């Protein structure tokens, strides 16, 4: 901070109180143009609150926000936008049926004669915007046809179209593959060069250290410190965040060898057939970039095949090809979705209904339910998973992401699975719950379940899996025991460089 210079953003003694809860308490923060400033903290630390206050989504209970020295009070998000603060939230607000250009300028389309939208002007304007910021998007594409990463670019383009000076990004990489993340970082760096202030909210500390210039750590609604990222380590950051050290529990449970023969999976994709083994007691991690077909494989394996994604499974003379999740479940193959909200939870139903959904027949008698047994089973399972909820009658939609995930794991476990396929098991879950879910998966493996974990977080795979397979263009291109795996090797294989490497190594 130069003396005598007015910083672009200066926040002083900012507070937000709810009845009985102090979400943010006297936070001071300064950040300047041409800076990437990260906000980190465990869940509930106040990151979101601070972000919502800055973006005008909520108004503060006390304190002041100054932009370029001027005190601001936002009546709502659009007021903040007018003052040059644009926000890209983790959850998108695009209209899927409309084109990229319509989405970017939604409600602000250039009008022609008769007050109708001037399509040509809109297109020209969009192309100019996309070119200016180097965003590779087709202005005419319908948003529903875009990948998640592309949709995020649309959101960013929309935010940039307000000619803002401050861009807030909320967990921008949660949905991105490594390559897409690099692309996003390139865009962020360009924006920084253009003199924007980027506030970067994230759980992913490595990324924060890679992209941000400064990082502000929040804990329990208070600011703990603002540090330059230069020379800072993840461990040091975690220590500041939690007041204690230790990110991931590194030690994977020792693999329990079983006598049972393994499952041999032969996966036929449009790009060819590749194979994989799954053994009881083993956690297999599936790495790969977004778009490499991990989820499609995970779903095909558990009864959601596509014509171009078929999993044949063999074991000891038996062979299976599941046509429905129901059929897969009957043989003990269970899938836990990466998209909890859309494909996982029954939002308005209670915890018991959610936990027992797959096991009603098992818990009932013929066509009749055994309500008492359902309750007992759900309650036992959730105790085992260390789920804390005020009551089992609470609708699952009210629980935190981590607790929802525990309920989904509980649902899977009540079917007594032999092969558990977890797609991004800790996405959007805070650090504490993450460790618990890892612990649960380790225990399960130790009890003889074969576990397949699909994850975009290499750290997670390295911490959890016994063996890592890497997918590239819908095939398994590399396989390595975790002891021999590292970020580089995985990334190389995922990017299609594996064969070369393996040849060089002589295997």
């Amino acid at each position: 901070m130069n003396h005598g210079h007015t910083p672009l953003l200066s926040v002083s003694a900012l507070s937000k109180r709810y009845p009985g809860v102090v979400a943010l308490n006297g936070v001071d923060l300064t950040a300047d143009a041409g800076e990437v400033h990260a906000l980190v903290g465990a869940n509930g630390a106040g990151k979101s609150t601070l972000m919502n206050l800055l973006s005008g989504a909520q108004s503060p209970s006390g304190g002041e926000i100054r932009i370029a020295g001027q005190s601001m009070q936002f009546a709502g998000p659009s007021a903040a936008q007018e003052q040059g603060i644009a926000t890209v939230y983790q959850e998108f607000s695009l209209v899927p049926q409309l084109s990229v250009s319509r989405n970017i300028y939604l409600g602000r389309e250039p009008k022609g004669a008769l007050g109708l939208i001037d399509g040509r002007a809109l297109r020209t304007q969009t192309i100019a915007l996309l070119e200016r910021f180097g965003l590779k998007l087709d202005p005419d594409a319908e948003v529903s046809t875009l990948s998640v990463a592309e949709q995020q670019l649309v959101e960013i383009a929309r935010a940039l179209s307000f000619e803002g000076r401050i861009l807030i990004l909320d967990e921008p990489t949660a949905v991105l593959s490594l390559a897409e993340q690099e692309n996003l970082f390139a865009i962020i760096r360009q924006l920084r060069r253009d003199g924007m202030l980027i506030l970067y909210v994230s759980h992913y500390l490595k990324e924060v250290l890679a992209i941000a210039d400064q990082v502000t750590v929040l804990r329990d609604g208070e600011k703990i410190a603002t540090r330059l990222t230069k020379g800072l380590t993840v461990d040091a950051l975690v220590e500041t965040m939690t007041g204690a050290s230790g990110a991931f529990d590194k030690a994977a449970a020792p693999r329990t060898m079983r006598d049972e023969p393994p499952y041999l999976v032969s996966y036929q994709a449009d790009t060819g057939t590749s194979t994989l083994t799954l053994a009881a007691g083993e956690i297999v991690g599936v790495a790969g970039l977004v778009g490499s077909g991990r989820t499609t494989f995970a779903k095909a394996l558990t009864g959601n095949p596509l014509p171009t994604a078929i999993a044949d499974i063999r074991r000891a003379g038996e062979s299976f090809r599941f046509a429905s999740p129901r059929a897969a479940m009957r043989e003990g193959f269970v899938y836990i979705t990466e998209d909890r909200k859309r494909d996982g939870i029954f939002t308005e139903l209670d915890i018991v209904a959610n936990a027992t959904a797959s096991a009603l027949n098992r818990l009932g008698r013929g066509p009749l339910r055994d309500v008492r047994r359902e309750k007992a089973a759900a309650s036992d399972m959730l105790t085992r998973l260390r789920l804390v909820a005020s009551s089992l009658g609470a609708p699952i939609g009210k629980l935190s992401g981590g607790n929802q995930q525990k309920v989904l794991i509980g649902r899977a476990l009540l079917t007594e699975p032999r092969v558990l396929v977890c797609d991004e098991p800790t996405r959007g879950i805070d650090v504490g719950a993450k460790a618990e879910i890892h612990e649960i998966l380790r225990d399960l493996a130790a009890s003889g379940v074969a576990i397949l974990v699909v994850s975009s977080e290499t750290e997670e795979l390295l911490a959890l899996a016994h063996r890592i397979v890497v997918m590239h263009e819908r095939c398994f291109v590399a396989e390595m025991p975790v002891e021999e795996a590292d970020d580089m090797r995985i990334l190389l294989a995922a990017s299609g460089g594996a064969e070369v490497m393996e040849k060089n190594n002589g295997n």
Partner: protein
Amino acid sequence: MSTLDLLRNEATTRFLARNAIFAVLLLVFCLAVAISDAFLQPLYIFNVVRQVAPVGIAAIGVTFVMILGGVDLSVGAVISLTSVFCAVQMGGDADNTAFALLAACAIGAAIGTVNGIAAAFTRVSPFILTLGTGIAVLGLTQIYSGGTARGIVAPGFREFFNFRIGGIVPVLALALAALTAVGLLIQHKTIFGRQLFLVGSNRRAANLSGLPTARVTVLAYALSGLFGAFAGIALLARSGVSNTLSGQGLEFQVLAAVVLGGTTFEGGRGGIAGTIAGVLVLVIAFNLVNISGLPYAMQLVVMGTIIILASAVYGQISARSG
């Protein structure tokens, strides 16, 4: 307020929202009593229940479909068809009664099954689908009956259902009570009942959780058709006259009652108890309209308004608590 208190408060709100219809029923009933003391006489009350039995019975079936997130607009046509069919098959002979009743039920269930199969395996919206089957069934009824009232009910049939036990409770009212009990049993005690809510709440999640979503869908619509047939029989028993258009428009009363009872078009919530309360609110409101000397047409206005108001209120509630 701690998080726990918040949760508790929400639980209270949820409880109130879920049971609002019973409070409304009480309110409407008190209003009715204030306006006319006829509402305190058992004979009158049971007559009202007898009167509403066909709609109530059909509403039970439609509730299943709506918990699933579907809708059944064909129920009015099913009531007409089964009612005429039953009268024609009886042909004024008591020996034909059993066959006529069973065959009518089979027809209702069959139409429901067709709806269910189409709903489970095609992507036609249930509104359009059941509107279509409703129109087609209406046509079939006209063809079958030749467009005029036909058939004579078997002797004893009408008398049986309208017999008042102890001089007060008509068998038809008991039938409604019994079928309500059956509905509640299906909803609460069977695996199918629980699966209805799961599929209605999130079909994709239900499918991924290994639920037999197609089977549940077909069964729900089949039940709606079957209860439609029960309603057709009840209507015939109430009036004793077969009319090819007798069920026409009843689907709207049914929908009004179901929505009023808290089973929304989005599915995943509501239930039979609410529906029956909704049916009673509706019939009391109609009788109030009658008593106050307003024309029948006014009932339609009341009904339309109720559907919109109820949907709006439940929409508000779920937006706040969802």
